């Protein structure tokens, strides 16, 4: 199974029926394809709607119904459009129950960094709504590949990139492991079938405890 699919499948298991969910670009949005039986979500899109659905056909696409990535979507019965200010206010005030976000880095304190990288020695900033989302949402699930292209751990002792949110991540999901962020640091909860805690220790910079029992991911 491909890395992105593993992460999307596992992340989908964190979603509960009836939750108001905001899924970030990339792997998080794929979680919608793997929702557990009986789980229906109220999907929030930052540009201003609750209750959007799947993408339309070419022939029926409405040029005024889009998601936060400027992609065409549909609006389901019971959906609501709102202004951008109201949408961001809902995020900031905590009306979004759960978010799954991509991350460049996470660390053992539950910090997440996902909006700035350096290009040509300049910070290339793209916050968008990510900070409002991490400020207000109670259940934040960070998804990322376990290591970068150079094989370095993306789960750090301390994030090196500018933070999106401080101490806000509840669960970290990679293609190899699932961590909870507890009061005193990370707890390794699950591993990809066949891997051991030592395997994860070898590729993870952050400190972590190991849950007993340590479970395998079911995908």
């Amino acid at each position, binding site marked *: 199974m491909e890395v992105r699919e593993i992460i999307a499948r596992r992340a989908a298991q964190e979603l509960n029926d009836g939750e108001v969910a905001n899924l970030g670009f990339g792997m998080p949005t794929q979680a919608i394809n793997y929702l557990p039986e009986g789980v229906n979500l109220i999907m929030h899109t930052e540009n201003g709607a609750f209750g959007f659905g799947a993408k339309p056909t070419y022939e029926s696409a409405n040029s*005024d119904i889009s*998601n936060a990535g400027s992609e065409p979507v549909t609006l389901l019965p019971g959906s609501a459009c709102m202004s951008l200010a109201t949408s961001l206010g809902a995020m900031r005030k905590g009306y979004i129950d759960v978010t799954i976000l991509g991350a460049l880095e996470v660390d053992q304190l539950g910090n997440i960094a996902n909006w700035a990288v350096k290009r040509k020695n300049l910070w*290339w900033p793209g*916050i968008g709504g990510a*900070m409002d989302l991490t*400020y207000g949402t109670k259940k934040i699930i960070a998804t990322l590949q376990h290591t970068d292209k150079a094989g370095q751990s993306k789960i750090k002792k301390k994030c090196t990139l500018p933070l999106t949110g401080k101490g806000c991540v509840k669960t970290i999901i990679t293609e190899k492991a699932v961590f909870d962020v507890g009061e005193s640091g990370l707890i390794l909860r699950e591993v990809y079938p066949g891997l051991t805690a030592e395997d994860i220790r070898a590729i993870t910079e952050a400190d972590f405890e190991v849950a007993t029992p340590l479970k395998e991911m079911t995908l």
Partner: protein
Amino acid sequence: MKSKVISMDEALDVVKDGTTLMLGGFIDVGSPIKSIEKIVERKTKELTVIAVTPGMAGFGKSMLYKNHQVKELISTHVGTSVESTEAYLEGELLVKEFFPMGTWIEKVRAGAMGLGGILVPVGVGILDEEGLFPKLEHPKQTLEVNGVKCFVEPALTAEVAIIKAWRADTFGNLEFRGTSLNDNADIAMAGAYTIAEVNEIVPVGTIDPQNVGCSGVFINAVVQGYSVEEQDAIYRDVWLKKGKLEKA
């Protein structure tokens, strides 16, 4: 009621070199794309653009950066388009400060509503970190209210605002379609002179008062944009090309 319908050329005479211009739309959906095309044609330059994002790659607002017409961007993102990213990295596009999206829209709303500014807790402890943005002109001022530390953020206004709605009556009362309200109604009030580009212009009395998303009182000029059919066709093709849609 006086008609505010004028030609696009006449309306855009207020946009001059160096104008501070607020543009409605969210990544170029609900965006005044025909007016923007006209500004590109007219080669107006050194604009300060206030928009929630730079625009959609290869489309809409992005063409302003591609044609070197924008001096400064006040936004929440630098890189939603290749064109704005390149202009920024080449040192051509000045980004003195940028904001979380919620902060940006509330600064615009404060400007729209005649407020001095806002108190916002998002980003405290992160965006005021020493040395994060050396070019930052105004270091963040914080204030504690009800035990919560907040940034004091001044309101944002503009000399000219150009917004997009579905339809307008000749007085300028606007109705919006789908998710395209986004920031348009707030931007309308934040501009000193506001141009509303619409798909359809209808007689006064057509739009039910309870369905008016933005009163004509806040609008100075109404201009004809693409029709709904033309707009749907344009976006369907853009989305098809970007792989966001598939033909049957």
